[in-house]
């Protein structure tokens, strides 16, 4: 079976591409690890035209239900690990099977950036978390560290405020980049300590996280703090290595595309946050997904 189109990703870009492809009657397969990606962590979305306020979860459910209305093959819970060419066609491999298609749209979005330090992977779920919205209530009366002093880090600390005993916010750079209003709110709670100019070195524990070691970048001395949780909020990153044989990646690891979503390989398109477009918004990702599907349709017609 050779598909007209394989879409990689089930966020707003991938789903919209799917809806457009289905309406163009392309024989399509959509492969996704999960629905929504970053969207599902958004508690309030107030800039989706036509809907005054909606949660990320509700919006993504509406989108995926809309997609499932069409006749289309969907593989959920699968991650694409390799993309290559075979003659004219593309070969897409997930952790389960291999598929062939005439065109591919990569819309796999971004994932939380990791620190890449000892203990981080080992204690994931055992005190190390990338989702305060999910896990904050589990840290009642505990001391916790938030890594990252930007708005994401501050939002994480706000989520934790209700539960944690003490919150250390640790920032690599000399200044916290998060909004001052939020910083003041956090400071007023009396629970939060702010450290700048620190590099996180390692996370230690036995069964669960017990401590974190950081380097004071001014004095180059290591310091250890006792904490029961580490929340990592240092931004998102593109994970497009699986496609690197066929695409150009920029410094951020994003896939370089032209204004019509073409990558450097004819027949291969990218859409949404995985691509090098500047603004990352749900409404923009949807538009980019639509553009990529239309470009793929046109490409198939002219082939």
């Amino acid at each position, binding site marked *: 079976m050779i598909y007209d189109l394989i879409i990689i990703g089930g966020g707003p870009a991938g789903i919209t591409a799917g809806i457009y492809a289905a309406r163009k009657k392309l024989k399509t397969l959509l492969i996704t690890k999960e629905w929504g990606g970053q969207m599902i962590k958004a508690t309030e979305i107030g800039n989706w035209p036509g809907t005054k306020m909606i949660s990320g*979860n509700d919006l993504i459910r509406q989108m995926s239900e809309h997609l499932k209305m069409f006749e289309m093959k969907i593989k959920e819970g699968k991650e694409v690990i390799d993309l290559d060419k075979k003659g004219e066609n593309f070969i897409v491999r997930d952790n389960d099977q291999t598929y062939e298609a005439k065109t591919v749209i990569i819309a796999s979005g971004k994932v939380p950036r990791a620190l890449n330090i000892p203990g981080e992977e080992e204690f994931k*779920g055992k005190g190390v978390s990338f989702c305060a*919205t*999910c896990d*904050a*209530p*589990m840290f009642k009366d505990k001391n916790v560290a938030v890594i990252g002093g930007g708005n994401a880090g501050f939002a994480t600390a706000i989520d934790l405020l209700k539960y944690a005993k003490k919150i250390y916010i640790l920032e690599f750079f000399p200044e916290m980049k998060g909004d001052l209003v939020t910083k003041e709110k956090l400071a007023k709670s009396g629970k939060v300590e702010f450290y700048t100019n620190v590099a996180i070195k390692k996370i230690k524990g036995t069964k669960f996280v017990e401590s974190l070691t950081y380097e004071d970048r001014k004095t180059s001395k290591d310091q250890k703090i006792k904490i029961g*949780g580490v929340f990592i909020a240092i931004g998102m990153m593109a994970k497009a290595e699986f496609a690197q044989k066929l695409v150009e990646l920029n410094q951020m690891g994003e896939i370089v595309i032209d204004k019509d979503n073409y990558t450097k390989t004819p027949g291969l398109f990218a859409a949404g946050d995985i691509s090098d477009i500047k603004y990352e918004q749900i409404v923009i990702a949807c538009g980019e997904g639509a553009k990529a599907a239309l470009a793929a349709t046109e490409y198939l017609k002219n082939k």
Partner: protein
Amino acid sequence: MVRVFSTPTCPYCVALKGFLKEHNIEFEDIDVSKDETAQKEMIEKSGQYGVPVIDIDGEIIVGFNQDRIKQLLKI
């Protein structure tokens, strides 16, 4: 028996519970942000803090692992 340990704000918990409802699977919905005893039980049984945790007839699954859940529930 199916038990779901979750918090109200966790998006994967909402997704998991939606998935179970979609397949007409009855489950006990345990809010570990309110029920501290259940929270302790969940941490002990799963060896970790992350939600959701689903207990299917004593088998513990961490996270919304659709494949494994489908397999155990035979859906």
